[in-house]
């Protein structure tokens, strides 16, 4: 088992313990961990992997904008724009070192441009165009890997490893 898996298992055990305490103290639904502070750096990293399930290839040359949420508002601001390379990953981690901070993020996939460049015959406007994937980095000590499987008609993303 990797150290990452150990960390996640420890987290789960902690969460269960907190939950058990909460049930005794105040009922199951009100048990919540203290919110993690946002903007904290750590040794983890943010990486992604884009898989094109329409053409059955890794998604290279896909433009992805990384946005971060401003505080608790519903506003996001651009952090950086990255492009996937051969293999569907980015050449370097999306966030690492001082740039990798806890927070609420959004990866915006430019699927309209991606499929237009490949000459896909799609309706206009296509069903999917700029696709936002929202997630939070709640612990900068962990690695956050976000794979996305996409086509012009659907997508799936998850916390990978």
């Amino acid at each position: 088992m990797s150290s990452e898996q150990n960390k996640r298992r420890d987290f789960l055990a902690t969460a269960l313990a907190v939950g058990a305490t909460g049930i005794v103290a105040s009922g199951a639904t009100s048990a919540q961990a203290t919110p993690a502070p946002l903007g904290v750096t750590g040794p983890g990293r943010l990486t992604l992997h884009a898989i094109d399930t329409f053409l059955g290839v890794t998604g290279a040359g896909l433009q992805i904008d990384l946005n971060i949420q401003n505080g608790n508002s519903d506003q996001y601001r651009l952090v950086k724009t990255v492009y996937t390379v051969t293999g569907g990953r980015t050449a370097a981690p999306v966030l690492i070192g001082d740039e990798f901070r806890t927070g609420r993020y959004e990866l915006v996939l430019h699927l309209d441009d991606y499929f237009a460049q490949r000459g896909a015959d799609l309706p206009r406007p296509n069903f999917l165009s700029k696709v936002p994937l929202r997630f939070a980095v709640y612990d900068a000590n962990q690695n956050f890997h976000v794979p996305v499987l996409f086509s012009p008609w659907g997508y799936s993303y998850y916390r990978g490893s």
Partner: protein
Amino acid sequence: MAGITTHVLDTVNGKPGAGMRIEFSKRVGYGFVLQKTVYTNADGRTDQMILAPGETTIGEYELRFFVEDYFRGKGVQLPDPAFISVVPIRFSVFDPSQHYHVPMLCSPWNCTTYRGS
């Protein structure tokens, strides 16, 4: 049938996602304008269509699914902030005479959507 519908599936419990809040918006200019807030019924669907055939026009729409609240309401212990919280799905209607069914399969750790039927 035309119009817009959705269906929430809870892939943790292997059941329809009942009682999930969904906000439905339409793109106007550079932003999305809230049209209505609905909650899923016992079957994970909404009692009324998200948008009726006669109301559906060409354009971009957004469904915002309150996934974190749903799982916390079931007593699931999540980090704060949770990995998955409010999930926006943005899609376009290109032919109002067609039906747009937009399902959401979710857990606290993943989301899947697609054009269904």
